[in-house]
């Protein structure tokens, strides 16, 4: 494998990890290890959640650089796991360029859960979190209903590449509206428990784990970026629910 190809393999591997929600140090370390496995000691990598910069020198000493912009990030822990395995395998077996790319491609082609599976999973989250927070069985059924509606709406919004802030805002608003509708229809329910349960579906956007691990590993910039993202998600959820609770109060006076 020549240096250009090595650079591409490392960048692809790093991009795959970062896109699936791996920590910065994992991305940088994996890329360094791939370089070292092929005998390149002068590799430099700088990654933040939205971009990877990587430079190595050619045999002649001229620098080769690749900048990789990461636009679509979606947490996919299965892919992090597999990509990590593939990186180790590349380091261990030092495959050719084509083989290495095929390995990375096989990770990218791994199946993801489609909408039907997600529509089954989100009410599970809503239902049991409502119970978890002390809601009754009836509350939990409503929370599950909110979760399904929320997931459907989010899937629709994601199709149009709506930004995360608005997605979370609408997600919060929908669960709020459905819950208020339940109250208006005369079901005796605990509004707070239902909404909290349903909202837990949106909480994975709040990546406390990742930003703490980034910060602790010394990637403070990356940690701050993820922290701000989490704060935005939390604000969006709160705003969405806030609006949906205010409007019915305004209109119907409940």
């Amino acid at each position, binding site marked *: 494998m020549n240096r250009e190809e090595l650079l591409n393999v490392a960048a692809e591997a790093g991009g795959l990890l970062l896109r699936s*929600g*791996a*920590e910065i140090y*994992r991305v940088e*370390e994996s890329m360094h*290890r791939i370089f*070292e*496995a092929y005998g390149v000691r002068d590799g430099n990598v700088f990654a933040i959640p939205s971009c990877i910069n990587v430079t190595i020198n050619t045999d002649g000493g001229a620098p080769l650089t690749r900048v990789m912009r990461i636009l679509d990030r979606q*947490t*996919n*822990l*299965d*892919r*992090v*796991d597999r990509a*990590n395995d593939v990186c*180790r395998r590349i*380091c*261990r077996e030092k495959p050719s360029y084509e083989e290495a790319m095929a390995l990375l491609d096989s990770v990218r082609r*791994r*199946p*993801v*859960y489609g909408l039907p*599976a*997600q529509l*089954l*999973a*989100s*009410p*599970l*989250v809503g*239902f*049991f*979190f409502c*119970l*978890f*927070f002390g809601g009754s069985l009836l509350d939990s059924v409503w929370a599950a209903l909110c979760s399904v509606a929320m997931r459907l709406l989010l899937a629709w919004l994601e199709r149009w590449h709506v930004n995360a802030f608005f997605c979370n805002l609408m997600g919060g608003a929908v669960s709020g509206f459905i819950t208020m509708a339940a109250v208006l229809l005369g079901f005796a329910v605990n509004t*707070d428990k239902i*909404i*909290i349960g349903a*909202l*837990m*579906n949106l*909480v*994975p956007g*709040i*990546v*406390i*784990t*990742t930003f*703490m*691990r980034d910060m*602790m*590993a010394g990637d403070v910039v990356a940690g701050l970026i993820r922290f701000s993202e989490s704060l935005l998600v*939390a604000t969006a*959820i*709160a705003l969405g*629910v*806030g609006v949906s*609770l205010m409007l019915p109060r305004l209109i119907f006076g409940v």
Partner: protein
Amino acid sequence: MEYLQCLYAFASCVGFCILLHIRGSSIFWMSLGGAIGWFFYLLCAPAQNDIFQYFIGTLALAVYAEVMARVRRAPATGYLHVALLPMVPGGGIYYTMEYGIAGNADLFLETGMHTLSIAGSLALGILVVSSVARLAALMGEERRARRGCRGE
């Protein structure tokens, strides 16, 4: 029965696992982390201080995550990510918002600060365990003094 909550936490973690695209037996092991975290939270209930409870719970689940990462040769991230979700103060965020809407500034600030402290104690718990685990990994590597590709 308070400890039933652990079961609820487990079941909701299974849902999260699917939303986070996890496959195979990892779903069970990752969700178990959520139940373990909450179990230790409840175990520390006599301390009468939920920030401390959250801290201990996070410590427990983070230790579990690091151990499982070694045992199953997978990144600890997944285990931490899923197991921490039941600990996220969703209730706190909601009540803060509700007091905000109601214009109750005192309760708004009080609940908001409390929620932030919980988030802080979660972060601290992860920080402690991850730092120790990283230190141990680095020391192990040093001992092996092997160059090339090192597993984590």
